[in-house]
């Protein structure tokens, strides 16, 4: 008889363990604002945060919708044993995720920052602090992890300054925005951001959520969380459509876009639709010179989580065949509740070459990095 009392799962090696993978969506949190963020935030903004709070451009005071059965939108098993929020303890992140899942390259995407705050000066200061914090508390301590440059994107001039301030630091691998902006993302008030990202040679990453002030659906505010969850895919489709037709990709043929956490199975149908309307009505546009599907094939990438899960897994693989195995970047969303487990996302019969592209090589190519 074997009796072994375990406090936590032992981190047994999953089937995918032979392959070192890239995880393009990891969410870190500070253990404490005072200890980890304040050192990078001027005194007056510390006071501001305490007196007035961080007010985003959205009607829900407590932030975006998530299921309350999963506090902090997190896996229930992701609370560090030493205390603190999920995603706030590097040692536990290593033990629970990076080591057992053999993550060799992980991209940090901080969701709580100055992004979307109404006070633009505070937004700028808070974003800068979050950027400095990622380097000091995460990437310097753990070479497998890379940082995102979070920018106060409703203020393009401040965003450009921040991109230029950070771009020399190798640990930043992308410029980070959220997909619900105050105006459609292709509009020219945001162009200086894209110019700066392209000039710095960094991909533009656009993650689900955001604070545009508009409802997530074209028909107004939905009743249920589950509709928000579905709406992220629609928001990303609106982002892509706007960037394509406003001519951002033609203006910056070197720009790479990474759409994060909004699914991918919708991409083939969207491309068919974009191509069809572009063929018939492109004389309405000044700047979109290339066929939309061609732009997507050259400049657009998507992270995988949350994977669509059709009843027949073969259909998922077919869909990836349509998109191309060179377009998708594996992501887990750790430590969030809708985490994808790497050894369970693709059917076992998908061949090794495709798996390597999907789990590792596409990400390293997009970010221009080697495994550390």
């Amino acid at each position: 008889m074997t009796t072994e009392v375990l406090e936590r799962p032992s981190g047994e090696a999953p089937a995918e363990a032979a392959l070192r993978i890239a995880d393009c969506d990891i969410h870190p949190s500070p253990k404490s604002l005072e200890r980890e963020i304040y050192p990078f935030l001027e005194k007056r903004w510390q006071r501001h945060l305490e007196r007035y709070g961080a007010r985003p451009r959205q009607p829900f005071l407590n932030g975006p919708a998530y299921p309350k059965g999963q506090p902090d939108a997190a896996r229930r098993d992701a609370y560090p044993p030493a205390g603190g929020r999920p995603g706030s303890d590097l040692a536990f992140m290593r033990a629970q995720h990076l080591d057992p899942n053999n993550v060799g390259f992980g991209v940090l995407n901080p969701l709580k920052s100055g992004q979307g705050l109404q006070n633009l000066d505070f937004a700028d200061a808070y974003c800068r602090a979050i950027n400095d914090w990622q380097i000091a508390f995460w990437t310097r301590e753990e070479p497998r992890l890379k940082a995102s440059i979070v920018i106060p994107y409703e203020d393009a001039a401040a965003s450009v300054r921040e991109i230029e301030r950070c771009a020399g630091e190798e640990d930043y691998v992308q410029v980070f925005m959220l997909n619900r902006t105050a105006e459609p993302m292709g509009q020219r008030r945001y162009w200086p951001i894209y110019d700066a990202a392209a000039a710095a040679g960094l991909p533009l990453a656009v993650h689900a959520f955001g604070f545009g002030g508009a409802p997530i659906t074209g028909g107004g505010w939905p009743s249920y969380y589950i509709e928000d969850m579905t709406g992220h895919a629609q928001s990303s489709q609106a982002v892509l459509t706007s960037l394509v037709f406003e001519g951002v990709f033609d203006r910056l043929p070197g720009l790479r876009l990474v759409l994060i956490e909004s699914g991918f199975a919708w991409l083939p149908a969207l491309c068919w639709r974009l191509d069809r309307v572009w063929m018939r009505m492109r004389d309405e546009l000044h700047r979109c010179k290339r066929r939309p599907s061609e732009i997507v094939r050259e400049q657009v990438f998507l992270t995988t989580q949350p994977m669509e899960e059709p009843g027949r897994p073969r259909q998922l693989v077919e869909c990836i065949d349509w998109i191309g195995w060179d377009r998708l970047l594996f992501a887990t969303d750790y430590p969030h509740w809708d985490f994808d487990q790497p050894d369970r996302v693709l059917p076992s019969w998908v061949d090794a070459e495709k798996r390597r592209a999907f789990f590792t090589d596409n990400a390293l190519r997009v970010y221009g990095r080697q495994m550390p």
Partner: protein
Amino acid sequence: MTRHVVAPVSEFPPGTRRCVVLEGRRIALFNVGGRYFGLLDRCPHQGGPLSEGVLTGLVEAGAPGDYSFSRPGEILRCPWHGWEFDLATGRSRFDPRRHRTRAFRVSAAPGEELRAETVPVRVEENYVVVET
């Protein structure tokens, strides 16, 4: 069937849970108000550790606003994506036929009856036993 002694009853009180490895499989054990339950510690969806899930009850609704809560503590929610399982059967709530995890019979037995086991047991104690 093999019977595995996993703990003296006195060390596995109501409201507690533990995880054991039996024959290479991790099994999540629960004591809910004196009743014992055991499930394979692996969600059939993506492999989440069920031993770290939240124990809740059965919420049913015939119509909006008309709901009932029963069987407190006997429904387990996976810590990852919130799939719910019946502790007694291992069957999922949303698709009991197709999606389930294995349930194990867990009971208390007197040490007297277990003397044939290869582990030392004391006849005056009761033990929690898992059948695999």
